[in-house]
C-alpha cells in the first residue's frame, strides 16, 4: 500500500512538471518599447498590430509572471490567443483598492463594475456607485467569489499577486477572464509604484496621457527630494510600533525606508538591504531609537491609543515630546484609509508630507494631505 502511494505521488509530480513547460516564445522584435524609469515589474512593447505587456515574477528575477497581448480589433492574430485582451476595456473588476486611483487620474473609474471588500474602499465615486448597486461585490480579495465574477463577465480582472504560490489566482484563472496582475505594491520605491499608471493606461490606450502625468509627478517628487537633501540637519526617525513583542521596522530598501531617506531623515536602517520589514524585538528598538527625534508612520491615529497599545511607547523621546506622525488624515470609520489608495499615485504629496514633518521650516505654509501629527 505504501508503494502504491509512492507511485501515485511520482505520477502526480511527473504530471505537474510537464505542465510548467508551456511558455510562449515570441521571436519578433518590437517596433518600440515604452520608457519605464522607476518600475521594475513590467514592460510594454509595441508591435505592428498589438501591444505586448510583460509582467515579471516579483520573486524570481528575470522570470515572467504573465504576458498580455493588447489588441483593438478582436480579429488580430497574436502569439497567444488565451492571453489576448481587447482594449480599451469597458468593464473592469478590481480586487485591490490600491488600484482605484490609477483609474481615477486616467478618468476611467466609470469602467469599474466589480470590487472586493467594498466596505474598505475610500474612493467616493466607487463607494457611491457600490451603494447605488451599480458595482458588484466580489467578496474577499483572497477568496474571490467566482460565481459572481462569471455572471458579471468583465473584460478583465485586475488583481495583485500576493505570493509566488497564489491559489486564489489559480482559482480565478479557471473563469477564463483575463487576470491583469497589477503588482505596484512589489516596487521598492514610491515612484516605482506610481509608474504602474503606465501599465493601467495601456489597457485604455492612454499611455501618452499616463507618461505626461507621471513625468510631471516624478519631476515634483525629485524637486522636493532635492530641497530636503539640502537641509542642514537630518532628524533621526523611527517607525511602526510594538505589537505583542514584535516591532515591524521598515527595511532599508523598502519603499518606506527609502521615503524617509528621500525626505531628509537620518534612518538607522538606511543601509540595510531588506526590502520588506524587519521583525525586531522591543529591546532592540528601544536601545537604538529611544532618543530618535521623530516617530513616523505610527500604527494608530492618536497619542492615547499609542500609549494604550503598549505603555512602554512612553519611553521614547519622540512620544514624550509629541513628535509622532501617522498617515491618518484621510480615513473612514469603516477602516478605509486613503493612504493605501490614492497616495500610491501621488508619491510627490507623500514625500512633501514627510518633509513637512521632518523639516517644517522648508515647507512653511504647507498643509499635508495624508499625514497628521498625533494628538
Amino acid at each position, binding site marked *: *500500500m*505504501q508503494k*502504491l*502511494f509512492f507511485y*501515485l*505521488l511520482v505520477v*502526480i*509530480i511527473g*504530471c*505537474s*512538471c510537464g*505542465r*510548467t513547460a508551456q511558455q510562449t516564445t515570441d521571436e519578433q522584435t518590437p517596433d518600440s518599447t515604452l520608457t519605464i524609469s522607476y518600475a521594475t515589474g513590467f514592460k510594454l512593447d509595441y508591435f505592428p498590430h498589438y501591444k505586448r505587456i510583460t509582467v515579471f515574477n516579483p*520573486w*524570481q528575477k528575470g*522570470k515572467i509572471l504573465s504576458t498580455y497581448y493588447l489588441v483593438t480589433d478582436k480579429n488580430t492574430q497574436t502569439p497567444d490567443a488565451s492571453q489576448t485582451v481587447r482594449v480599451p476595456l469597458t468593464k473592469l473588476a478590481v480586487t485591490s483598492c490600491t488600484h482605484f486611483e490609477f483609474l481615477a487620474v486616467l478618468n476611467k473609474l466609470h469602467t469599474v463594475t466589480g470590487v472586493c471588500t467594498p466596505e474598505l474602499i475610500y474612493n467616493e465615486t466607487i463607494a457611491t456607485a457600490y451603494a447605488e448597486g451599480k458595482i*458588484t*461585490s*466580489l*467578496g*474577499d480579495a*483572497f*477568496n474571490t*467569489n*467566482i*460565481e*459572481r465574477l*462569471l*455572471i458579471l*463577465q468583465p473584460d478583465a480582472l485586475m488583481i495583485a499577486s*500576493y*505570493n*509566488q*504560490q*497564489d*491559489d*486564489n489566482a*489559480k*482559482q480565478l484563472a*479557471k*473563469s477564463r477572464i483575463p487576470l491583469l496582475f497589477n503588482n505596484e505594491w512589489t516596487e521598492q520605491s514610491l515612484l516605482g509604484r506610481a509608474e504602474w499608471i503606465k501599465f493601467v493606461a495601456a489597457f485604455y490606450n492612454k499611455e501618452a496621457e499616463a507618461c505626461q502625468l507621471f513625468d510631471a509627478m516624478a519631476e515634483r517628487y525629485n524637486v522636493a527630494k532635492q530641497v530636503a537633501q539640502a537641509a542642514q540637519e537630518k532628524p533621526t526617525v523611527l517607525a511602526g510600533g510594538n505589537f505583542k513583542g*514584535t516591532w515591524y521596522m521598515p527595511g532599508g530598501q523598502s519603499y518606506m525606508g527609502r521615503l524617509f531617506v528621500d525626505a531628509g531623515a537620518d534612518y538607522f536602517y538606511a543601509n540595510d538591504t531588506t526590502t*520588506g*520589514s524587519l*521583525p525586531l524585538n522591543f529591546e532592540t528598538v528601544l536601545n537604538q531609537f529611544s532618543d530618535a527625534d521623530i516617530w513616523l508612520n505610527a500604527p494608530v491615529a492618536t497619542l492615547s491609543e499609542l500609549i494604550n497599545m503598549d505603555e512602554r511607547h512612553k519611553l521614547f523621546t519622540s512620544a514624550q515630546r509629541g513628535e509622532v506622525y501617522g498617515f491618518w488624515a484621510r480615513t473612514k470609520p469603516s477602516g478605509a484609509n486613503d493612504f493605501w489608495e490614492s497616495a500610491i499615485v501621488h508619491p510627490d504629496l507623500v514625500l512633501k508630507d514627510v518633509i513637512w514633518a521632518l523639516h517644517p521650516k522648508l515647507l512653511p505654509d504647507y498643509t499635508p494631505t495624508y499625514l497628521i501629527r498625533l494628538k
Partner: protein
Amino acid sequence: MNRLPKNTLLFVGLILLTALLFLLDIAFGSVRLPLEALLSDNPIYHEIIFNFRLPKALTAVITGASISVAGLLMQTLFRNPLAGPYVLGVSSGASLGVAIFLLGSSFLPMHFIQSGWGLVISAILGGVFVLLLVLGISFRVRQAVSLLIVGIMFGQIAGSLVTILQNSSNPDSLKLFVVWTFGSLSAVSWTYMQVMLPLVAIGLVLALTIQKSLNGLLLGENYAQGLGINIVRTRFLIIIAVALLAGTTTAFTGPIAFIGMAVPHLVRGLFRTSNHRIMLPGTMLCGASLLLLCDLATQLPSDGYTLPINAISALVGAPIIIWIILKKRSNS
C-alpha cells in the same frame, strides 16, 4: 431478522437525502440562478454549474464520506468516542507542508512552486510524513492509547513549527495560509478530482475489506487477538486507510473540523448498532449529506462573501459532540 427492513428503510432514506442535498447544493450558490439555468445552454450558466458547482458538490460528498469513515476507524482503533480523523496528526502534518510551501517557498525549486500541484503535494507530503512516523511507532507500542498520545504530540510539534514559520512571514502570505486553514470545497477542479477520487476510493475499499477485524477490535484488543485477528496488521491497515481518506481530502480541501468525529455517533444513534457492516455505509452517506448541508450554509451571506466551510462544520459538529457527552453522562 426483524431489524433488516428497518435498516433498509433507513439506508434508502439516507440515499434519498444525500441525493436531494446534492441537487440543492448545485441549485443554490452565491449567485441566484433561475431553475431553468440547469438545462439552459447559456455558456456562463453552464460554466458555473458544470465547472464550479458540480465538482464542489461532488467534493462535499467525497470529503464528507471520507473523513467520517476515517473518524469511525479511529474511534474503533482507539476505542475512544472522541477520536477523529485528524488525531494521528494528518491535518497538522498537512498544515505544516502547506505552511512550508506558502510561507517558506523561497528555498523550494521553482518549477515545483509554479506547477498547480505544489500546494496539494506539500499537504500530502506533510500528512504522509507525520503518519509514517506514527506508523513506525505503532509497531513499537502495544497500547492503542499510547499511539493516540504520540499522534497528538506529533500534531503539536507540527503546529509549533507552523507558528515559527508564521512568525517571520509577511501578512499577505499569512492570509493565504489562513485562508487554506478555513478549508474550501471549491478548490477541487476536475483535474484534481481525477487524483482525489481514486485515492479516496482505495481508502474506502480498504476500510470495507477489514470490517470483520474492526468488529473484533470493538471487543478489546485481547479479545480480538483471541478471535484470531492480527492486531498489528489490522492497525497498519487502519492507519493506511485513514492516511488515504483524511490525508487526501485534507490535501485538496484543507482541514474540515468535527464532521469526522460527529458523524459516527450520529450513525450509531440512528441504526442503534456498532456493527461495521452497517456503520461503514451509514457513515459514508451521513457524512456526505452533513457536509453538503454545511456547504449550503456557507452560501448564506448575500453580499458576495462566503463563510469558511471549516467554521460551519465545527458549528454543526461540536454541538453534536456535546450532546453525545451529556447523553453518555445521563445514561451512566
